[in-house]
């Protein structure tokens, strides 16, 4: 097995064994789905639109799967940079950056899958069948999983900002809030005013989260293509930033030793 595949698998197993962590996360997901279901039921009753909660709770589930499965790689990387740990991996035949990213993906995958299974069961019981066709499920699932990987990449970029910043907590929190608002991770952007959506469209959060999760209630090949193309564009841009920053970081370690 390739070294990165081994890293992925080991961190997957590790995350899987942390039962208390997973239970806490599922409890939080349950509370979130339950409360938002009550909220959307009330809105649906007032607006006389039956089934509104079904659509939006399934939307919320996929959004939370992406957001909550983030393994906080930003903090790990920041600590590695600040403590100088990174320097001690630099003379090993492995890329430190890909090592940490792969470990994070292993962690993320466990949370994503567990939340997917548990959340789908809860949502099915509370609201009924999903708003998409069954044959669309693998596509939506794969797109959301890809978005989760992108989410990890986004927080990798945040962590690497430790090269310039004394603390990344504020930046990490700002990105998280922006993801919730501009990415439509709590409420779909379709319920926001047009001017707000126009602003959101210029940010990566729009495609990372909203365009992908939107497929849950509005699946079409056009929407899928739009999500795919825009995500590819932002991933390319973000990867360039991450790789450039990582190279700068390595150069600094070569000069200052970590």
């Amino acid at each position: 097995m390739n070294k990165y595949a081994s890293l992925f698998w080991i961190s997957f197993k590790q995350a899987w064994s942390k039962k208390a962590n997973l239970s806490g996360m599922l409890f939080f997901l349950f509370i979130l789905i339950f409360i938002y279901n009550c909220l959307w039921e009330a809105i649906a009753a007032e607006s006389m639109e039956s089934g509104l909660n079904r659509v939006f709770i399934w939307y919320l589930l996929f959004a939370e799967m992406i957001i909550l499965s983030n393994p906080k790689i930003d903090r790990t990387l920041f600590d590695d940079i600040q403590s100088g740990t990174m320097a001690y991996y630099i003379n090993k035949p492995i890329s430190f950056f890909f090592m940490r990213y792969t470990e994070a993906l292993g962690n993320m995958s466990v949370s994503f899958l567990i939340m997917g299974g548990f959340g789908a069961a809860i949502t099915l019981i509370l609201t009924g069948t999903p708003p998409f066709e069954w044959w669309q499920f693998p596509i939506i699932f794969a797109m959301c999983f890809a978005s989760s990987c992108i989410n990890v990449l986004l927080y990798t970029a945040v962590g690497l900002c430790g090269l310039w910043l004394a603390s990344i907590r504020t930046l990490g929190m700002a990105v998280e809030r922006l993801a919730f608002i501009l990415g439509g991770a709590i409420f779909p952007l379709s319920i926001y005013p047009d001017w707000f959506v126009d602003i959101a469209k210029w940010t990566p959060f729009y495609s990372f989260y909203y365009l992908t999760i939107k497929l849950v209630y509005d699946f079409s090949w056009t929407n899928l293509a739009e999500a795919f193309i825009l995500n590819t564009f932002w991933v390319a841009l973000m990867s360039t930033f991450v790789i450039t920053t990582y190279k700068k970081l390595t150069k600094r370690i070569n000069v200052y030793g970590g």
Partner: protein
Amino acid sequence: MTDIIEVSQLTKKFKIQKPSSGLKSFFKPEYKNVTAVDKISFAIKKGERVAFIGPNGAGKSTTIKMLSSILYPTSGTALVNGLVPWDNRKKLAYDIGTVFGQRSQLWYNLPVQDSFALMGKIYDLDEIPFKRRLSKLVKLFEIRDLLEHPTRSLSLGQRMRCEIVASLLHKPQILFLDEPTIGLDVTAKEIIRDLIKKQALEEDTTLLLTSHDTDDMEKVCERVIIINKGKLIFDDSISALRDSYLNKKYIEITTEGGKKIRTVVNTKEKPAKQAIDELVKKYHVTDMTIENPPMEEIIKEIYSRE
């Protein structure tokens, strides 16, 4: 025997920002150059066990970092197993092992055996040779009972044994050990020293060990390089150092009443055993420690004789 490490005029300068609180320094900070390693030259033969010692801030770790391809030098050259370390990082990685006493290369939350398995993958080791190698090292370093424990639950001494095993899995020709006994108690230090030496002799591994503990070099190495303020001030065999500078022993005894008596013995004039016998006859000794002169004193003496 051929030289496996060749260092010539190796220099490392760090640019450090001058502390200042003025507004001007915010926009235009001032820097000063600090020379950590100053034109050092030496060569090490294959299989040699060399101690690289000096007080804190002498430049030991900086040199090890340059030779193990972490740092770029400011000037000078070095060849490690025929490769310029900073230009051949990936290639050299398979020939060298590194242990940094104050850093761990094991995964904190993983059982030790999982960390070893990952190291095996990182160094592209095949399954069967890896298992054979691991089994040998586990036996040599007596860590069978530790394999299932996560790194975080190990004592410092246990962790250090596992760290050394991790760095030896790919059978490196050269092992760089940076303060491997730092923070360990006397017993753990003894165990680590014995194991390092045993392994090096068994596999003909070249050792470069940094420490500010003179006991480390005496117990493990055959040659010593002393560095102070970035400059190489001594390079000879341990026996030459012992004859010239380690001929003093500090003996401290505790008497029955709890009184501590410290005495310095020149072993050239009187063997340590004789001095101890005299002390035991004279006092009712309840405890005793015997130490080499501290690093600072040896360095002071080297300078005073120049």
